[in-house]
């Protein structure tokens, strides 16, 4: 009688052994992915990789492989913390497999050997990667090598609070024509400051709320430099255009002097700024396309299109109307097992498929990465993504991928802030920036 249970367990053991030998290709992989600048609307930066993992597991199963992918996700809301954490982790050889960061990190990170070119792992000629906008793929490249796959696109428009524009004399027809007028260079930065002033003089907004720009450092400020005729890079060399930078610094100094922008605007709490632009406390402000998602989802601005009109950043003296796209890219970090990196690359490829990427675009109000995505009904039926794509993306520039751009950026920003707050005169700020750039970057930057 006692032989039966023994036989039973032996049979079970044999069955288990047999089942494991049948799956000779069983593989458990953990793919970690970190994303910077990621708020509640941007979850698909990480979730898309998870969706892709399910797809890849199914593909593997069809080929008789038992592939199990665990995706470990980590999001950082602030950029400073994220970049510090990632850089130090990568130096300590504990970087995640996939990183979602700004394209401008490609140059320094690839030079330092922290990331590997994604083109070593994926087929750029096959779908969906062959459908990605060529200019976005360019932005994700460095030294002629594609290092990252664009995760999203966006641009940074100028926003106007419609009711106040009407109150200072714009008709509905004028407002409808405003985006074109900005694009044609008829409505300029000068007009913008005048309108902001009018709004304040009429008591529509409080002093300092006429023009209410971004409250912290960010790519947005390079748009103003472009507006005033500045160039960031030419032929692989960084360019510091003194005259354009002077006009840029002067613009903000003038905004403060005329009282339409607060002297202490930089450094104010971000939450407060969001609340104020969503409730019509500010007249004109600049921001990103993704602001739409936050204004509508978190800040309670119900009738966005009834209250807000958006345009390119108007032209200033010597420049042209423009906007800047700052695509985030999926990057592969160095120092991992080649097979794991290969799986990570495949996950990125699947996550770039139009339908999956459209989830991110629509939820976060970023823009699509491929023509096919704009044909996905779910994407094109969304008024914001459709209008923003059409109106802004064709005019978008990008920051250069140059390993010294960060240094240039820091110096530019420090002096912009100093001239904004009156800490330095505009001329002193530009000349300080010039001398520091000379002593720091030497012949890596052209000063003119």
């Amino acid at each position, binding site marked *: 009688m006692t032989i039966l249970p023994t036989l039973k367990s032996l049979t079970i053991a044999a069955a288990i052994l047999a089942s494991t030998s049948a799956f000779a290709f069983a593989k458990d992989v953990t793919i970690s992915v970190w994303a910077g600048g990621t708020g509640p609307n941007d979850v698909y930066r990480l979730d898309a990789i998870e969706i892709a993992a399910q797809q890849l597991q199914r593909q593997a199963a069809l080929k008789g492989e038992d592939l199990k992918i665990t995706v470990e996700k980590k999001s950082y809301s602030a950029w400073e913390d994220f970049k510090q954490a990632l850089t130090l982790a990568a130096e300590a050889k504990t970087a995640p497999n996939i990183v979602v960061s700004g394209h401008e990190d490609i140059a320094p990170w690839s*030079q330092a050997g922290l990331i590997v*070119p994604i083109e070593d792992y994926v087929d750029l000629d096959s779908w969906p990667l062959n459908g990605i906008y060529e200019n976005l793929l360019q932005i994700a490249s460095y*030294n002629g090598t594609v290092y990252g796959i664009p995760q999203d696109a966006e641009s940074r428009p100028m926003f106007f609070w419609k009711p106040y524009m009407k109150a200072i004399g714009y008709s509905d027809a004028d407002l409808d024509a405003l985006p074109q007028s900005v694009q044609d260079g008829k409505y300029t930065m000068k007009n913008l400051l005048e309108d902001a002033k009018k709004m304040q003089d009429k008591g529509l907004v409080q002093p300092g709320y006429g023009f209410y720009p971004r409250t912290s450092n960010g790519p947005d400020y390079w748009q103003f430099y472009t507006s005033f005729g500045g160039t960031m890079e030419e032929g692989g060399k960084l360019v510091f255009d003194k005259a354009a930078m002077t006009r840029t610094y002067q613009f903000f100094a003038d905004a403060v002097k005329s009282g339409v922008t*607060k002297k202490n605007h930089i450094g104010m709490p971000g939450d407060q700024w969001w609340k104020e632009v969503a409730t019509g406390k500010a007249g004109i402000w600049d921001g990103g396309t993704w602001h739409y998602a936050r204004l509508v989802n978190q800040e309670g601005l119900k009738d966005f299109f009834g209250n807000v009109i958006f345009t390119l950043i108007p032209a200033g003296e010597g420049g042209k109307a423009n906007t800047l796209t700052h695509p985030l890219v999926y990057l592969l970090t160095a120092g991992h097992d080649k097979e794991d990196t290969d799986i990570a690359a495949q996950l990125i490829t699947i996550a770039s498929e139009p339908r999956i990427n459209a989830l991110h675009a629509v939820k976060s109000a970023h823009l699509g990465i491929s023509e096919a995505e704009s044909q996905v009904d779910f994407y094109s039926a969304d008024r914001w993504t459709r209008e923003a794509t059409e109106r802004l993306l064709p005019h978008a520039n990008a920051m250069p991928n140059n390993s010294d751009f960060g240094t240039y950026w820091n110096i530019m920003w420090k002096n912009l802030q100093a001239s904004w707050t009156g800490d330095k005169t505009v001329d002193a700020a530009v000349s300080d920036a010039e001398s520091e750039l000379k*002593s720091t970057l030497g012949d890596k930057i052209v000063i003119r």
Partner: protein
Amino acid sequence: MKSSRTLGLVMIAPAAIMIVLFFLLPVVLTAVFSMTNMTTATGISGGVYQIAPNSLITLKSAMPDIAAEISEPRYAIDEAGLKAVEGLGLAPGIAGELRAKHTGEVFATRRDAERMIKDLSERPSTRDVKQISEQFNRSVVNTRFDSKEQLFSALDTLGLKLTPEQKETVATATYTGWTWTTDNFSRLATSPDMARVLLNTVLYVALVLTLFNVGYALLLAIWTHYMPPGPASIFRGIWLLPRITPVVIYVLLWKWLAWDSGFISILMGKFGYPPKNYLLDTAYHAWFFVVLINGFIGASMGMLVFSSAMKAIPKSQFYASEVDGASRWQQIRYIILPQMRWPILFVTCYQTLSLLASFNEILLATNGGPGNSTEVWALAAYHTALRNYAGNLEYGLGAAMALVLVVIGVTLSLLYLRVFNYGTLVAKPLIED
């Protein structure tokens, strides 16, 4: 005697190891890093030699022909490559078809070569395509070489005849890592912003130290000294609160107090003043709050040290002075202060050094603003080396800034010891000789 000395050394060994590891080594490493141009882009662990189009930009002006030649990407279908493909263990038809149809072809980019490979009748998988194309890579573009020798031998295989000097120039231009330099210090010495930051630091340390950490701490100690023990303990306890509250919460409380939508603005609104960000409104406002925030934290330590030192003064001296009709002021002037020399020296020294290195409260409150007006040296070093939006962490420059701070700290300590006549304070009592 001798054995006790050896035993002493053994006993002190753990402490000595700790001191070397956690006190001396960081300073030595800071000094080492400060002599480099280490950044995010150069990495920390050292560099490689990479012939990338961007790194060759400087080389282009010096030797344009060679720069153009070596930055040319090339994928050549040759016999060596075909042999290597055969060795990969892929389907045999692949190498055969490549040999039959494509021998001698040269592709300008890897993508072109891979397109050809994908057109083979036995279309390989993406992974195999990458492997195959690599066998025909006859360029050095974007290849990372761990050593100069590897770089030079690769250049030789390319058929480039370079003189040793030219090779060295190429090596220098293509090196991706950090190099030794003293540029950080000349940058610090010449930058007008650094002068400003230094001035901010002096102002910050001087104000917080004299007004709060020593001045107000002494005042609190004297007040509580003359209070009955119960209320005195409560009073001291309250003053300890800022010290024991987590910094983030403590600074957040100040922010709630001073923001546009904060307590002060609401209160002033009742009197018709428009709300404003009192914390960041002007540089003066920011300084006012920075000094208060740090002062309230720092005052408690001096208060405790001074209070306990005052308790150690024999009561008889106070009784005697009262019998002699001394006033409170005279007691402070002739009994308390002369005996507080050592605690004052200690608190001044300790707090100067701690203020020089402290920046977390400023980081959380103003982040150095508005317009860098409250950026102190330690905060600037942190911003430079470890935190900025552009992600360009300048470790070398940051270390140089930290080193300056160490030098200032050590110099100030020595100066304090001299001013307070440390030698006399620790002199052996004559009676023991």
